[in-house]
């Protein structure tokens, strides 16, 4: 019976995902809700997740900031009929690279040890920050998920 139960649990332990949606209260700027999803209650500390989302939000604010540098970039690009973007990276693209570096670092330091995986929002059309969890429910499972690589889609 135990074997059957374990097999049942194993077959039911598909990768379930939690999605943190966009926060549109400030308009169309890219911003994610800092509300803590209840599904992750036992998996991660509230403050850590909120910190991650807040940092992501601050990166996006900086990427979309309209100020001196964006005017300069815009005018220079327009003067060259936007051909300059063939050689130069836009500010937004640079920030996106920075963000994916940050996401990777967060995964390594915080989320992987807890059996979670944070997906970069740019891979989801900037709509959601998704957390995938591996739920292998062997009785003696430790908090680290050895099969993390296979869990991810």
């Amino acid at each position, binding site marked *: 019976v135990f074997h059957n139960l374990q097999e049942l649990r194993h077959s039911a332990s598909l990768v379930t*995902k939690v999605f943190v949606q966009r926060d549109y209260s400030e*308009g169309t700027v890219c911003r994610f809700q800092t509300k803590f999803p209840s599904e992750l209650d036992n998996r991660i500390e509230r403050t850590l997740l909120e910190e991650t989302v807040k940092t992501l939000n601050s990166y996006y604010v900086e990427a979309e900031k309209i100020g001196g540098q964006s005017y300069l970039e815009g005018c220079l690009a327009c003067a060259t009929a936007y051909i300059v973007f063939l050689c130069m990276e836009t500010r*937004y693209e640079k920030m996106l690279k920075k963000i994916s570096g940050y996401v990777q670092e967060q995964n390594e330091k915080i989320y992987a040890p807890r059996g979670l995986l944070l997906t970069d929002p740019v891979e989801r059309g900037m709509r959601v920050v998704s957390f995938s969890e591996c739920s292998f429910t062997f009785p003696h499972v430790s908090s680290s998920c050895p099969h993390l690589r296979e869990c991810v889609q």
Partner: protein
Amino acid sequence: MITRKVRKWEKLPGKNTFCCDGRVMMARQKGVFYLTLFLIVGTCSLFFAFECPYLAVHLSPAIPVFAALLFLFVIAMLLRTSFSDPGVLPRALPEEATFIEMEIEAANGNVPTGQRPPPRIRNVQINNQIVKLKYCYTCKIFRPPRASHCSICDNCVDRFDHHCPWVGNCVGKRNYRFFYMFTLSLSLLTIYIFTFDIIHVVMRKYPVSHLSNQKEQTCRRIVLVCFFTLWSVVGLTGFHTYLISLNQTTNEDIKGSWSGKNRVQNPYSHKNIIKNCCEVLCGPVYPSVLDRRGLMQEDSSVSATSAAPSSFSSSNPVSQTTKTTAPLIPNEHTPDDAKPSIAASAETSAPPKDEVPPAPKVPPLASPETDAEASIVKDKAH
């Protein structure tokens, strides 16, 4: 079972055509775009061939040089508008679609059988205005504010302005500034050519040297083309200048979203013309979130579990997600309340751009126009 690597654009849903291995993205019907190219290139070629030699000699060689630069700028802007991703929102992957469905079911509670479930709308407060986010049954997402679904391209586009057949693409967040620069520079080019046409014809009328009949005919034809192009293109530029100064999209203008009838004001406007212009024209250039050139694995064996045959030819990109009308969760329970979503998935909530054009309005910032000219503008905008 052979797996091969394909580029993601080959499997993207939607009715776009892709060229140059995914670098170029356009709508399916490109006929009018070729016409636009032909008109611009044709008129300018005639100008350079027949008029510039005379003008360069008798007035200044700077005239054709400046015309050439302006012409190149116009073409660059046109191609940039036509070939770039307008800001397409990728469709929700199955898990995300399921998650949203579950959220909706939870919010709706128990709907008595036989009754239609409530419409899928999320209310969001932006800048003290309530904005309704509609659910897109094709893309299975709640559309972000200002996004709309283009039925011609079958995509949700962020900050959707309109689908322009003249450029053969949608105009949205990513390519609106290129579109505006195109209409603006084309207006300048048309005015420039028109002016020098007139000067040329006038100078020839009181000639020192005499002009061949054929050349005079060509000049007159150029004047005629310029005259008609002038009113429509300049009018369109004026209209979009008006929209930019109010931070509105053509879509919102047509729907009358912020026309003040319900005392609803535009929550995205900074209430300052300069700020609005700066945001639209000098804001960041958003990168595409549609990964077109990424590689993915593809199974070329036909498996029994596939719901619909995937086509492998690159000219017909149809993905499995478009065939399923309700997200099917591949585990023990499929929610029974997925059925109302199947019934309701037939409706698309975005008005296609080829519907009846609205009554013409005269935008205040444009040069004084008659209603007839404004209607030409509106027609051109569609």
